[in-house]
C-alpha cells in the first residue's frame, strides 16, 4: 500500500475534502454551499453561490464523472437569475425566481430536518421502553407531630412580650387629623357632578366630552367631573363615542338607584 500522496494547493478556492461529497440533488448542494459560507437561506448571494456551484460542477467534469442533468439545469437557472439581476436590480421576474429558489431551499431543509427527526426517533424509541417497565412511589404524606418538641429558655418569653408591647403602640388606625394636610373633604362631590352631567344630557341631548369641563373653575372641579364621567360609564349610564380629539357623550339609560360613587 503506497503512502498517501499529499496534494498541492489547488487552483480553486473551494477545494477541500468535503467538496467531494455526492449530493442527492442540486438543492442539497446549494444548501451545503450556504452552510459552508455561513449564509442563511434568506441572505443567499447569487454571485457567491453561482461561482461555487459552477466550480463544483467543473471538478466533477474533470474527474470524468457523469453530472446528472438536474445539476446542469440548476446551474443554468442560477446563471439566468444572476444575469437578470445584473441587468436590472429591480427585475421583478428575477426576484420571483429567487423567491421560488429560496422557498424550495427552505422546504428542502425542512424535509432534511424531518428526516433527521425520524432517524432520531428510531434511536430514542427503544430507550422509552425503560419508563414502561418501572414503578415509582409518590411521597407519603408526612404528619407533623402536634406535641411541641423544641427547647426554649424562660427569657424568650420576656423577649416575646417586649416585642408584643412595641407593636401595641401601633394597634389603632391613625386618627383622621394626621391626614388633613394631604386629603381634604372633597369640595365637589362626584355624585352631584354626575347628576349635573345627566341633567345636561337630558336637556341638551348629546354633547361633546370637552364641553363638560368648560365651566369648571378649579382643578378639583375638573377632577370631580372626570371621575363622574368614569363612574357613569362604569354604570353604563352614559356612552362615549368618537375619537380622542372629537368625543361625544350620550345618555344611555337612567341612573339606577343605589349607585355608589
Amino acid at each position, binding site marked *: 500500500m503506497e503512502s498517501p500522496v499529499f496534494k498541492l494547493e489547488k487552483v480553486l478556492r473551494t477545494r477541500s475534502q468535503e467538496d467531494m461529497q455526492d449530493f442527492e440533488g442540486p438543492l442539497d448542494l446549494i444548501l451545503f454551499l450556504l452552510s459552508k459560507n455561513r449564509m442563511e437561506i434568506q441572505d443567499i448571494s447569487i454571485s457567491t453561490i453561482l461561482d461555487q456551484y459552477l466550480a463544483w460542477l467543473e471538478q466533477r467534469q474533470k474527474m470524468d464523472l457523469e453530472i446528472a442533468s438536474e445539476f446542469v439545469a440548476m446551474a443554468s437557472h442560477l446563471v439566468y437569475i444572476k444575469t437578470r439581476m445584473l441587468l436590472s436590480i429591480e427585475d421583478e421576474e428575477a426576484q420571483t425566481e429567487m423567491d421560488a429558489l429560496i422557498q424550495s431551499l427552505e422546504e428542502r431543509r425542512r424535509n432534511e430536518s424531518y428526516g433527521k427527526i*425520524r432517524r432520531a426517533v428510531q434511536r430514542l424509541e427503544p430507550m422509552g421502553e425503560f419508563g414502561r417497565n418501572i414503578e415509582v412511589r409518590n411521597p407519603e404524606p408526612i404528619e407533623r407531630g402536634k406535641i411541641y418538641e423544641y427547647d426554649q429558655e424562660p427569657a424568650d418569653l420576656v423577649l416575646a412580650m417586649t416585642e408584643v408591647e412595641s407593636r401595641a403602640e401601633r394597634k389603632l388606625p391613625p386618627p383622621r387629623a394626621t391626614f388633613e394636610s394631604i386629603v381634604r373633604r372633597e369640595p365637589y362631590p362626584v355624585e352631584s357632578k354626575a347628576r349635573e352631567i345627566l341633567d345636561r344630557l337630558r336637556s341638551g341631548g348629546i354633547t361633546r366630552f370637552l364641553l363638560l369641563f368648560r365651566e369648571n373653575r378649579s382643578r378639583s372641579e375638573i377632577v370631580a367631573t372626570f371621575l363622574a364621567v368614569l363612574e357613569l360609564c362604569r354604570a353604563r349610564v352614559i356612552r362615549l363615542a368618537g375619537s380622542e380629539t372629537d368625543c361625544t357623550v350620550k345618555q344611555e339609560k337612567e341612573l339606577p338607584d343605589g349607585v355608589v360613587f
Partner: protein
Amino acid sequence: MMETLDMKEIESAIEGILFASGEPVHEERICMALELDKATVEQILQKLMDYYSYERRGIRLLHIEDSWQLCSAPDYAEVIRKAFEIRKPAKLSQPALEVLTIIAYYQPTTRAYVDQIRGVDSAYTVGLLLERKLIEECGRLQVPGRPHLYRTTKNFLRAFHLTSLNDLPEMPDLATEGQMRIGDDGEILDPDAPSAEMLDRGEPEEPGGGQPVSEA
C-alpha cells in the same frame, strides 16, 4: 447533634431517605441531613446504584439531573405487574414520538415550529404529551401572537432513562452518514464497507473515510 456514622450506615441512611421520599430527592437535601459534602454523597449514591444493578436487586436507583430516586427494577416488570394485576402502560404513538423528539432536541420550541417540521398540525399530540407530563410549558416567545414555548420534563428523563438532556443520543446527520465519497484521485471511498486488501492483511476496519477499494 450528629453521631458519626460509618460508611455502611451512611449508605443505609441514604437508602432510608430515598425510600421515605418516594419522589426524587435533591442531593442538597441528603448533604444537609447527613452533613456531608456533595462529592461524597454522589460517590455513595453511585455505589448504591451500582450495587442494586450488579446484585440484580428488585429496586434500582435513578439519577435525574441533581436528584435521585428509587424505582422498581425493570427486569421484574412482568411479575410486578402480575402481582397487582395491572397492565403495561401503552407506548407512545409515532406522531407522539416525533413531536417529543422535536421538542427534546430543539427546546425550548413552539408548537408552530413542530408543525413546520412535521408538515402537519400537532396540537392534539402536544396536548397528549402535556397530559402525560412528558413536556411542559416554559414561557412564551416574544413575537406577535406570543405563542407558548415547550420543553421536556424530568418525567421525560426518567421514562427514557436519561440523567440529563446531555445524554440524548446525537442527532444523526443526514448529509454525511454512510455517504460514499470520491477521493482526491477519483477513487470511490465507501465508509461502510471494509476494503478487500484490509481484510486480507487482517487490518482493523477504519471508521469512515477508509482505504481505497482499488489502487489508484
